[in-house]
């Protein structure tokens, strides 16, 4: 315990000295986030400093092994670091599908060579990754994917079309599912491969969403050369890793149901905007919906905490990622429906300085995708029914 107290104090002191003042505010706009990568333009000198200082300590990936440049922290220390960052409202120094998704998969399934090649640049924010999973004909039925990799000895030649590849036009490398055995049962002939987005034949095209932004692309693969040493795990055994990654993705997206510590609650925002009489928001029906949301939001946050604690203490399996994904994304959608009602006609402003570039309606529309991406709510309910409840 004394060691942990020392760690907390040292962490606090270090953050105090190294977290620049402008990085101590919650992210209120998608442009505030730092994604890194070859093509990244830092929004400010302080954003660059913050990412680089954290990366130098390995704290962009605090619980990864130090030998690959990670922080080497255990679970308790990682939690302390998060708490200390939250205490001063420190932003995430680096948002990264490398850290959230392919990195953990490499740590678990990757060869030593792949780990040494890919993990350090992820931690330093030098390489930005995207995910090539879905296809026009393979959405909820992901294992039905058709993009193929033909065996050419020491490499594959990949052809096909991926869709919903997040930020493919801005990313440096892709982790991608290809069908490499065309005879096998559909889950059995899939490989997880890695390639550089500058490889000839890779063409990402942004998709414009109802929110007006284009966070996703369709990515065309035309005779793309993929080296065999860039296969993660065994050839044709990629589905297991894909499922592992989907679990990670579910947890990440489910986390949208959590509101940032330190930021205003929906109730507080509504109280300011709608006015309070005798301690109560004067619009009684809206107040009822808001407090119901807040109760569910609190229950969800407690559940995320409980599941983490159960895993840590080895008590059972706890609730699964499918449940957190389902509950978290449905909550986030409800939250933004309420935000729209609280902001009234102001919420309908699409653009302009007064509306923070139409932040409210655009974010509201974006949340509609939360219960679709990474497996729809209906797919999550299928997973719960079949895997947990044993209903066939």
């Amino acid at each position: 315990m004394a060691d942990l107290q020392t760690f907390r104090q040292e962490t606090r002191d270090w953050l105090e000295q190294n977290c620049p003042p402008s990085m101590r505010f919650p992210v209120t706009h998608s442009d505030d986030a730092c994604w890194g990568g070859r093509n990244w333009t830092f929004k400010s000198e302080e954003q660059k400093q913050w990412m680089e200082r954290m990366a130098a300590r390995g704290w962009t990936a605090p619980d990864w092994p130090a030998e690959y440049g990670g922080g080497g922290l255990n679970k308790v220390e990682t939690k302390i670091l998060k708490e200390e960052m939250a205490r001063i409202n420190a932003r995430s120094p680096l948002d990264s599908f490398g850290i959230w998704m392919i990195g953990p998969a490499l740590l678990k399934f990757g060869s030593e060579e792949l780990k040494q090649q890919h993990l350090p640049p992820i931690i330093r924010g030098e390489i930005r990754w995207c995910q090539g999973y879905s296809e026009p004909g393979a959405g909820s039925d992901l294992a039905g994917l058709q993009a193929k990799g033909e065996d050419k000895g020491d490499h594959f030649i990949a052809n096909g079309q991926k869709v919903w590849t997040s930020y493919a036009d801005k990313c440096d490398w892709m982790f991608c599912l290809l069908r490499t055995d065309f005879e096998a049962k559909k889950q059995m002939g899939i490989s997880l491969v890695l390639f550089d987005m500058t490889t000839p034949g890779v063409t990402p095209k942004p998709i414009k969403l109802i929110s007006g932004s284009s966070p996703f692309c369709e990515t065309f693969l035309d005779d793309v050369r993929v080296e065999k040493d860039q296969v993660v795990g065994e050839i044709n055994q990629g589905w297991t890793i894909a499922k592992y990654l989907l679990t990670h993705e579910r947890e990440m997206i489910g986390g949208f149901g959590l509101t940032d510590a330190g930021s205003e609650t929906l109730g507080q925002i509504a109280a300011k905007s709608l006015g309070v009489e005798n301690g109560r928001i004067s619009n009684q029906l809206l107040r009822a919906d808001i407090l119901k949301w807040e109760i569910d939001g609190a229950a969800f946050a407690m559940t995320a905490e409980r599941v983490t604690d159960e895993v840590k203490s080895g008590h059972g399996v706890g609730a699964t990622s499918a449940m957190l994904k389902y509950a978290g994304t449905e909550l986030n959608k409800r939250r933004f429906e309420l935000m729209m009602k609280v902001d009234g006609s102001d919420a309908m402003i699409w653009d302009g300085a007064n509306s923070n570039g139409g932040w409210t309606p655009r974010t509201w529309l974006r949340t509609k995708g939360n219960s679709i991406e990474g497996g729809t709510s209906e797919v999550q309910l299928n997973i719960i029914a079949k895997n947990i409840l044993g209903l066939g």
Partner: protein
Amino acid sequence: MAMVINEEQQMLKESAQGFLAEFAPIGEVRKQRDAGSETGYADNLWPQMADMGWAAILVPEAYGGLEFGHVGMGQIVEQTGRTLTASPLFSSAILGVTAINHCASEAQKTELLGAIAGGEITTALAVDEKIHHAPTQIRTTATASGQCYLLNGSKRYVADGSTADKLIVAARTGGDAGDSQGISLFVVDPTAAGVDIQRTEMVDCRNYANINFNNVEVPKSALLGEEGSGFQALSATLDVGNAFLAAELLGIAQQTFDVTLQYLKERKQFGVLIGSFQALQHRAAHWWSEIELCKSVVLKALQALDAGDTKSPLLVSIAKAKLCEVSELATNEAIQMHGGIGMTDEYDIGFYIKRARPAAMLFGDYSYHGDRFALLSGY
């Protein structure tokens, strides 16, 4: 505090499961109802529970208790929700102990807590006077008169009110209805002159009473704590009570789910198990997810009470509100998914909906606790 139960609490949970399976399984509810029981439980049940130490769990060691905490007691109460076991556990070992422990004098604690912990006396808490919970809306008066107070007024739906050995009555020694100031708590002998107790027959076949007080003489020594400042202890007692009602409702939600899930795996229609229908699978999965949320809010509230957390009132209202909502979902879904057989008295599932509603209504339903949660949150 990590959100897991420790080994001792786990053992208590398992011992409660074993005891209730043997001495108070769900069939006992039917038996007591059909026999027209006054209390809702067998005569020898409470002595047995007291022997198990259950009456002493919240009592401090200094007064002969086990001081085992709210999370520990929560494990038992959750199990009594699964078996729908009525007993004085809630009224005496939870409400009585908490109220007395909060504001009584040393002499009163020594006299009363030890007797409750040993299962020798039972108590009932008389607060509400109308059909909805409103703890500041107390109109029953206690007027000082010589060495006594004179109690006048009426209380409604007092849980265990017609069987308790002692009534703990919230009455006004000052202020007006709506004020939290001016409320005092008294220990009243139910056999005293002027106490009129009418048992009511309720949907859950448990014991509730409407009680009239007509110039009842209560000695000054029966006042708990300071005159006029009983609301704090009352409020703390209601928080504890609501946390355990939430724990009981969690047991009900889980048991109805388990029984219904089993039914989905047995019942065949159209030549297949009805659990193979996606329409039912999704509803079952949603219901299961809601129960996961419920486990968290109940544990959080009980842990807060053990820690003396100042956020306890807020966390208790979250827990009670959420469990009011989900126990309603659970008992309704249980009947619907059972189909016709769920409507029959022959089948046990109907007992759960008939206990879930009064447990939700007691000491405030969703509308009460949702409103309280929002007020405590500043809106």
